[in-house]
């Protein structure tokens, strides 16, 4: 009986788009590398202390290689939404997303600087917006991204932050916020990760 009701319930669900997205009005934000409890702390002279972060970034950026992006995603026009409507009964699935090349990230792409500036005390931190299906984030001068249908090979747009002048041996609390007209600006909401992200940065130097 229970199994039957569950089965019937599952039949009513869409394969590609959730029925409701009540909880996801404001997408969450997240940083890479994630570190322990959103804390990036290392000693610039101690290779082992930052090597982890570099590896994490390498892994994270791997799908953003140009070859991968061209293979999977479409090159879209900047500043327009790439919307793939279903044509009536024929579902337009799987959907494709726009290309986001690693090269866009410049110094933080890991192509020129293999270590993302970590040994120099100028670390790169990538900020990503949580994926939410059907979200139209609005235009943003910094982020030429468009969302589209769910895809296995979807890679989110990223923003890179490079800290150029960091005081050594001190905790730096960083809060990044998304500025957009379409995304409700969370001000006093309890969710510290909706449309913003805070993390701590500490670079030690002997």
């Amino acid at each position, binding site marked *: 009986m*229970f199994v039957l009701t569950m089965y019937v319930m*599952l039949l009513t669900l869409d394969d590609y*788009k959730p029925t409701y997205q009540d909880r996801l009005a404001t997408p969450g934000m997240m940083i890479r590398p994630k570190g322990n409890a959103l804390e990036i702390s290392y000693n610039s002279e101690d290779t082992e202390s930052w090597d982890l972060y570099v590896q994490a970034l390498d892994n994270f950026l791997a799908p953003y290689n140009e070859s991968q992006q061209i293979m999977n995603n479409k090159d879209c026009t900047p500043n327009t939404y790439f919307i793939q409507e279903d044509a009536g009964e024929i579902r337009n699935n799987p959907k494709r997303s726009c290309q986001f090349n690693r090269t866009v990230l410049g110094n933080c792409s890991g192509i020129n600087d293999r270590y993302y500036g970590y040994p120099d005390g100028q670390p790169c931190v990538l900020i990503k917006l949580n994926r939410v299906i059907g979200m139209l984030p609005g235009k943003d001068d910094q982020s030429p991204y468009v969302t589209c249908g769910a895809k296995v090979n979807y890679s989110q747009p990223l923003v890179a932050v490079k800290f150029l002048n960091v005081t050594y041996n001190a905790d730096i609390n960083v809060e990044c916020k998304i500025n957009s007209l379409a995304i409700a600006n969370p001000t006093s909401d309890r969710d510290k990760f909706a449309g913003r992200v805070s993390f701590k940065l500490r670079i030690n130097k002997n």
Partner: protein
Amino acid sequence: DSYGMFVEMDKMDGEMDVQIKKKKKIKKKERLENMKKEMDIDDHEITIEELEMKYTTSVTKGLTTNMAQQVLERDGPNELKPPKGTPEYVKFARQLAGGLQCLMWLYLAITLIAVVVQALVIRDGQKNQINANMLVVGDLVEIKGGDRVPADIRIISAQGCKTRSPECTHENPLETRNIAFFSTTCLEGVATGVIINTGDRTIIGRIASLASGVGNEKTPIAIEIEHFVDIIAGLAIFFGFTFFVVAMFIGYAFLEAMIFFMAIVVAYVPEGLLATVTVCLSLTAKRLARKNCVVKNLEAVETLGSTSVICSDKTGTLTQNRMTVAHLWFDNMIHAADTTEDQSGQSFDQSSETWRALARVAGLCNRAIFKPGQDTVPIPKTLSRYLAKADRQPQPKMAQLGLIYLLVMKGAPERILERCSTILIKGQELPLDEQWKEAFQTAYMDLGGLGERVLGFCHIYLNEKEYPRGYRFDTDEMNFPTSGLCFAGLISMIDPPRATVPDAVMKCRTAGIRVVMVTGDHPITAKAIAANVGIISEGSETVEDIANRLRIPVEQVNKRDARACVINGGQLKDMSSDELDENLRCHPEMVFARTSPQQKLIIVESCQRLGSIVAVTGDGVNDSPALKKADIGIAMGIAGSDAAKNAADMILLDDNFASIVTGVEQGRLIFDNLKKSIAYTLTKNIPELTPYLIYITVSVPLPLGCITILFIELATDIFPSVSLAYEKAESDIMHLKPRNPRKDRLVNEALAVYSYFQIGAIQSFAGFTDYFTAMAQEGWFPLLCVGLRSQWEDVHLQDLQDSYGQEWTFSQRLYQEYTCYTVFFVSIEICQISDVLIRKTRRLSVFQQGFFRNKVLVTAIVFQLCLGNLLCYCPGMPNIFNFMPIR
């Protein structure tokens, strides 16, 4: 000695070695057994010289001060030990622990106020005024009008001393005139006497300590709830342990598994149950109060419903407690008078001349007065009522009748007859020959056999010449004729049964409740009243009746043939407890006459040994031990003494036996309704528990939170479960046998299994279906949920992917979890609404019982829905109570 024992008993409450405790218990038991035995007092029979010897005292000089001091040290002070109560601080602690019953805080306010009584004592030949508690056995004391008798006293010399008849003696075999009892009041006169008993060894003291020594029996509902708690606790620990093992097996850390174990046990406790039970009982208590039953102890309400034996007092409870003329004999005929309370019945033919004469004699020979507002009541009617409590000593009285005097006299019939030479028949004075005397005897025996008190009346017109106007009659010198009078007739009186009683006794009978009469009255009177009210039903015979009918000796009668049985105190004294049990077993209709307080207790105990739930009614101090021992003690509100009211669980404001029957009905109803309420309350335990179990075993995100559970238990479900208490009786509950306390439990396995594993399971499935639907619709497919727990609850994981690849922050997931709580909550609520309709009836169908007959229940359902909506959709709820608006 006994004082020491009391001290020890008091200490028993403290923490003492178990072994010592056991010893004490045996001691205590022995002491109680002693108490129950009849008191042997011979002090009123021995001579004063012997008395002096016995107490080494002197009737002129009293004790020496030294001696008194010694005795005081030996016996302790002359005061009643306050009843062995739990120390106040323990009660306080218990209340704190027990919660809820705030009413009991009142106990704290109750303290005993001791009043110091002074007594005039003669010691060393000197009169001294000392505190009554310093008195000792052997002391010579003086009492005068207005004093409270300070101890049991053997009166040595007295001048017109009268004490108010103590409450304990009218049913006490010790009928003597030279003993004044402790705590009675000397009304007038002066007396000197030797103290024979002090403190707790006085008659009153013994009764009081018997009452306090008799443990309060646990009420059946308390037993039921204990039984129920056992079941719950057993199941909780079983479940807890099973899942503890499962958790350990799955690979949780020991500590984590331990927390799970505790959480399950706690989740299993039906938090709302106690509130429900208390409210249900209070409701009934309130309803009973309107019907003149004040319930002191809430649990007593239900006890009344399971009562299977009622030991009822006669005077005042079954009867009107006033002597009323029942029969008259004149003109060689027995006439029946109207004994109803409001004189509405048929009266006899009052046209005879003899009646007029008899009425005149009776009217003149009594001290009745008209109460205000009774001026218009016809005299014969008032007359028949106020002949009460007449002396049986012949009392001549004079009355002026025009120019001549009329001498009227009433008294014991045989004594009156002795003084008569003529008899009044149809207004004619006929010579009193053997034939009339025989007729008189027959009538006297007949009336006596009815258990009535018979009085004879006679008169004589005095000669005008011998006794002219203004003649001074002197009753001491008897300067008037006291023989050769004219016999007018007999009037017999009885304390008639209350009009409602026979009906009530009948109802008890159909309800399978046995009514046993226990009275201090004479066996014949007791039997007559018992037959009158139906305690001894028509056609039932006692062993003696059968013997009479068959003209065989009593010994040859088969005891089992006799349905009825009248046992008097004397017989009871010689009976072993087994014999008494045997008697109670084989005679369904029992009357105990001439019983003492101790015997009342023995009877109650015997009934309890036979497995009955016993209700006892009583009014006097002497009844308090039995009232306390009984499963439910019922005190009389009007006639009852404070001691009786204290010992009782319930008070009948109108002293009417019929009120008990109402009580029984309500008690049975509440048991039925409590069963429904509890079943209803229990059911939701399962859908509250399973989310947690699934959470542990399958590691899904938690479907139902603690706060939500508390809301179900204490907010939304309270009203419907209480509303079941308003449910009307399904069938005629007064035609069923009383429940068998051993078989018909409040919560039995069948009910638990049905609640838990059928309805509970259905509710759980409903909850989970909704839970998984809510999750899936937001993007978390059931299969993904499985095993998701640790990631789901990871505070640092801000981008957990759902089935669609969407990423969720922790906070978003938390609110999603709250949504699940709410969804689960709503499922349980909806299921519970149908559950309350299921529980509404146990035997009939809902349609037979009527959907809307219980208005409270309908209101409760509406209330539940409104509250549910409020919780879900009121702004601010998500953050305060973890409720989310759902679609």
